[in-house]
C-alpha cells in the first residue's frame, strides 16, 4: 500500500508533469509556425472565390428556444460564399421549432430522405419561402440525441465537407474560412477532419448572435474554465496535432470529410462522447485501410460557447465528458499501445488512458489515503505540505504559461486587469481540483452503471448588449 502511494503515484505524477512540459514545448513550436504562416494568408480571396468548395453546416438543436433565432442568424451570416445551413430540430419539447418556422417562413418540402446512416424518423424537411434564406434547410425529427441529429444532417447534406456545430454556440464569422483551409492545401495525406479553439462566452456582450464586446467571465467557475479551455486548446490539442495524436475535435465546432464519416458509420449514438468516438473511429478505419490521413487543428478561436456557471450544471457536463471518455476508450481499446495505429496508438491513446481517465481516479485514491493517514496520525505534515506546494506551484505556473500563449496568440482580453484576474484565477484553481476529481469519479461510476443520455443543462442565455449611459458605442 505504502509502496503504491509512495512510488507509483509519484512516478505517474512526474510523468504527467513531464508530459505537460513536453506538450507545452511542442505547442509553442507549432503555434509559432502557424501564426507566422497565417500572417501571410489572405482569407478574403477564399471568401470571394467561385472555386471555394461547398460546405454544409449542421447544427442540432434541442430545446434551444432562448437562443435559436440569433444563432441561426449568425450561421446564415458567416463569411463564406458557398455554404448551406442544416438545422436539425431533435424533437424539442419547447417552442424551438415553432420559433424557427415562424421567423424563417418555413414550409415543408417533398424531400426524399435517404437514411444512408441510420437515424430516428424524420418528421419533415423544411425550406424557407423567402429566397433570402435559401441556404437554410430545417429537419424536424424524433428525439434521438445529438449524434443522431448530426447523422440526419449528414444524410441530407450535399457537400463533400460538413461542419458540425452546437446550435447554442456563437460562431466567429470567419471560422469557416479558417476551418476549410487545411482541406485546400495539397498534402500527401488526406485531411479527414479539423478542429479549432472554443472560447467562453459567459459575461461577454452579445447582440443578435454576434459578440460585441469580450469580457472575462465574472463568476468564478466560468473564469476557471477559461484557464481550463486555454490549457486544453492551446497547450494540449495544438501539441497533439503536431504529434499526429489528436483524438478529439470538439463537438462545439469541427469540420469533416463527409465520405470518410459515412464510411466510418457516422456518429455513434451509443456514447455521450460522440465527438471523440467519431475521431477515434475515423482514424482507426483509415489506419486499418492503410490510407495516409491527417486530423488537423487550427489554433484560431472559431466559436464561443456558454459554460456552466453553477456546480450542478458543471457536474453534469463533466461527468458526461468522463462517461464519453470511458466509452470511447473502451470501444477502441484495441488501439492501446498498438503501433499499427501510429502515434495515436502508441502515444495519444495511452496518454488519454493514463492521464485523462486514470489520473483522476488515482488522485481520488490519494485523497482517501491521505484521510487514512490523518486518522492514524501517521501523516508527515511538513513533507505533505512540501508535496502540496510542489503540485500547486507547478499547476499555477502551467496556467500562467497558458495565459502567455493566449496573450501572444489571440490577445482576446484587452484589459491589463484581465491578465491579473486570470492570474488570480490560476492561483485559486488548484483548490478546485478535488471538485474535478469528484466529477471524474462520479462519471466513472455512471459509466460503470451504464448510464446513458446527456441530462439537461441550465442555460442562462447570452448577455444582451445594453447601452450604458456615458459609454461610447
Amino acid at each position, binding site marked *: 500500500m505504502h509502496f503504491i502511494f509512495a512510488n507509483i503515484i509519484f512516478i505517474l505524477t512526474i510523468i504527467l508533469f513531464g508530459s505537460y512540459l513536453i506538450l507545452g514545448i511542442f505547442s509553442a513550436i507549432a503555434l509559432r509556425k502557424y501564426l507566422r504562416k497565417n500572417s*501571410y494568408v489572405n482569407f478574403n480571396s477564399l471568401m*470571394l472565390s467561385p472555386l471555394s468548395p461547398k460546405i454544409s453546416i449542421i447544427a442540432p438543436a434541442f430545446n434551444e428556444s432562448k437562443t435559436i433565432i440569433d444563432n441561426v442568424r449568425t450561421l446564415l451570416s458567416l463569411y463564406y460564399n458557398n455554404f448551406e445551413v442544416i438545422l436539425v430540430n431533435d424533437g424539442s419539447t419547447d417552442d424551438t421549432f415553432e420559433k424557427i418556422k415562424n421567423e424563417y417562413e418555413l414550409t415543408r418540402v417533398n424531400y426524399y430522405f435517404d437514411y444512408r446512416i441510420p437515424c430516428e424518423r424524420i418528421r419533415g424537411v423544411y425550406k424557407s419561402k423567402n429566397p433570402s434564406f435559401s441556404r437554410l434547410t430545417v429537419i424536424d425529427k424524433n428525439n434521438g440525441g445529438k449524434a443522431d441529429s448530426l447523422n440526419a444532417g449528414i444524410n441530407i447534406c450535399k457537400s463533400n465537407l460538413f461542419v458540425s456545430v452546437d446550435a447554442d454556440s456563437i460562431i466567429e464569422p470567419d471560422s469557416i474560412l479558417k476551418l476549410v483551409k487545411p482541406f*485546400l492545401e495539397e498534402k500527401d495525406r488526406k485531411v479527414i477532419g479539423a478542429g479549432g479553439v472554443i472560447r467562453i462566452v459567459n459575461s461577454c456582450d452579445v447582440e443578435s448572435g454576434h459578440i460585441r464586446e469580450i469580457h472575462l467571465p465574472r463568476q468564478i467557475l466560468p473564469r476557471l474554465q477559461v484557464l481550463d479551455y486555454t490549457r486544453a486548446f492551446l497547450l494540449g490539442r495544438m501539441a497533439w496535432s503536431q504529434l499526429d495524436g489528436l483524438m478529439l475535435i470538439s463537438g462545439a465546432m469541427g469540420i469533416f470529410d463527409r465520405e470518410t464519416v459515412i464510411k466510418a458509420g457516422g456518429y455513434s449514438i451509443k456514447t455521450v462522447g460522440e465527438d471523440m468516438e467519431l475521431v477515434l473511429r475515423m482514424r482507426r478505419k483509415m489506419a486499418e485501410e492503410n490510407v495516409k490521413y491527417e486530423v488537423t487543428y487550427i489554433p484560431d478561436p472559431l466559436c464561443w460557447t456558454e459554460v456552466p456557471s453553477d456546480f450542478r450544471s458543471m457536474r453534469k457536463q463533466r461527468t458526461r465528458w468522463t462517461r464519453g471518455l470511458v466509452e470511447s476508450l473502451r470501444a477502441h481499446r484495441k488501439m492501446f499501445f498498438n503501433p499499427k495505429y501510429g502515434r495515436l496508438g502508441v502515444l495519444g491513446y495511452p496518454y488519454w488512458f493514463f492521464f485523462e481517465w486514470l489520473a483522476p481516479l488515482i488522485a481520488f485514491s490519494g485523497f482517501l489515503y491521505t484521510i487514512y493517514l490523518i486518522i492514524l496520525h501517521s501523516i508527515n505534515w511538513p513533507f505533505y505540505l512540501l508535496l502540496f506546494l510542489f503540485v500547486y506551484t507547478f499547476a499555477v505556473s502551467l496556467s500562467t504559461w497558458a495565459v*502567455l500563449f493566449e496573450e501572444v496568440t489571440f490577445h482576446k482580453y484587452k484589459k*491589463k486587469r484581465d491578465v491579473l484576474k486570470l492570474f488570480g484565477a490560476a492561483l485559486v484553481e488548484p483548490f478546485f481540483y478535488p471538485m474535478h476529481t469528484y466529477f471524474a469519479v462520479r462519471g466513472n461510476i455512471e459509466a460503470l452503471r451504464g448510464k446513458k443520455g446527456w441530462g439537461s443543462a441550465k442555460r442562462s442565455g447570452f448577455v444582451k448588449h445594453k447601452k450604458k449611459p456615458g459609454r461610447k458605442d
Partner: protein
Amino acid sequence: MKYIVFYILLLLVTDAIPAYCTPARPATTAGNTLDPGLREQLLKIIPDGFIPVNDPGYALQLGAFRLKSNADALLKKLTGHLKREAVIVKEDGYYKVRVPSYEDKPDTLERPPSASVLIRSDSLLTYSLLSRLCIKPDYFDSHFFTGVLDTIKKSAASAGKIFFLKGESPWLKRINYFGKSVSFVNVLIVAIVTSITIMFILLFIILLNRNRLEKEEKLQQFLLEKYQSMIIDYLYGNTTADEFRSIASDNYRRQVLIDQLIDVSVNLKGDASNKLLTLYKHLGLDRDSIARAYDHRWHKKIKGFRELAFMDIKDANAAIYKALNSSNEILRMEAQIALVRLSDDNPFEFLTHLTRPFSLWEQITLHELIIQHDLPIPSFRVWLHSTNPTVVMFALRMIREFKQEESEDSLKSVLLHPDPAVRKLAVQVAGDMKMHSTREVMRSMYKNQEYNICLEIIRSLGKMPDPSMIGFLKLVIDKEDDVQLQIEATKAMENIGEEGISALVKLMKSEYKNYNIIIRHVLDRRIY
C-alpha cells in the same frame, strides 16, 4: 527582479525549515548509560519513533541489503571511519553489515520493520544509521560512537553544501523515496522555487508584452499618418525625396515607410506610381527588399517577394524562381504570385515547370490575382496535357471561369485522364460549359467509373439536356440502388423537357418500383 524574487523565496523556504526541526515527541531514552554529552547529541539526531535498546549482547547493524555489492560498498565506506572491523553476515536473505567485535548475537538482533534497506550515499548513511540504532550502550565505547557520529556529521555537512535540507531533518521522517530522501526533498524544493520563479517571470513577460504592444500600436499609427501625409505631399506637393532621408536611417521606420509606399502604390497608376518607384529606389529601399528576398528565413523571403512584386523590381527573380518548388507551401505560393506579377510576356510560364502539387488554395489565390490585377488571360488548354494533375485541374477550372469554349476538344481527352479527381472535374466542367460533344464519351465511360464520377456524369448530362439520353437515364433510375443517383437521373430527365417529363409520368405509373417519392422530390423547386 527575478533574482530578488528567487532569493526571497529561497530565504522563506530555508527559514521555514528550522521551525520543523524539533521532533514532536522526544525519543525514549530511559535507562541509557551513555555519556550525557553523547546522549544529548544522540537525542538531537535520533528522529522521533526510533528508540535505543538497552538489552545487552547486541551487535551494531549498520545496514541490510538484498545485493551483496551494496553491502560491500557500505563496508568499504565504513572501513576508514570505524576503529573496529565490520563484517557482512548473510541472514534471512539479506546481507547485513555489522560491527561484531562485541558479543555477537544475531538471533536476538532487532531488525527494523522494513528489511529492504538500500544505502547508496553518505547522506543516506546518516538516515540509515539513525533509523537503525538498536543498540545497547554498554557495548559501545565512546571512541566508536564518536566515529559514527563523525561520519554522520561529515555526510550531513557534505549534503548541506548542495541541498537546503540536511539528513537529520524531520522533514525526511518515514520517507524513503527511491532510497534518496534528502535528494528527493531538495529536488522538490528546487522544483517549487523554479515553478514560482517561472510563474512570476511569465507574468512579467505578459505585462511587459502588453505595454510593448500598446506602445508599438501608438507609434505605428503615428508613423503611418505622418508618412502618408509626407508621401501625398511628395506626390502632389512640395516635399522632396531628400526629406525622407532621416526616416530611412532607422530600420523600423524604413520598414514602416516601405509598407506605406506599397499601400499608397496599390491605388496609383501612371506618373504618380512611377514617382513613388523613383522615391523607393532613391532611398535605397529596393536594396532592403532584395536582401530580404535572398534571406535564408522563409518569412523574410516572402516579405521581400511581396515588396519587389509591388514595386515591379525584377532584380531578385533568381531567388523567386528558386522558391517555386520549395517545400514550404506559403513561400511557394508567394513566389508564384510574385512571378506572375513580375513577368512581362508569359506570367503563367511557371505552370509548365511546376513539379510540386498546385494546391486548390494556391489556385484560388492565383485566380484572385488574375481578376484583381486584370492580368492577360492565356489559353489554359495548353496545360490540359500537363504531367502534373493539379496543374490540369487548375487549367480546367480556369477554362470554366473564363469560359474558354475553344478548349472543348482538348477537354474531351481529359475525361479519360488516369487520375479520378481530374476525371471528375473534367466531367463537371464539361457539364457546366455545356460541351455537348462530351455527352457520348460520358455515357460510354459511366459503367467503369467510381461512384462520385458516376454521380457527376449524371449531373452533367442533366445540364446538357438531350432526348437521346432518356433511355440511359431511365436505366440508371431502374438499375441503380443509390438514391442520389436516382434523384440526379430523374432531375436530368426532367430537364430534357416535355419528352423527359412524359417519360417520368410513365415511370410513376410503373409497378416495377415506387418512383413517386423520387419524382416528387425532384419536382419540388424549393429543394434546390
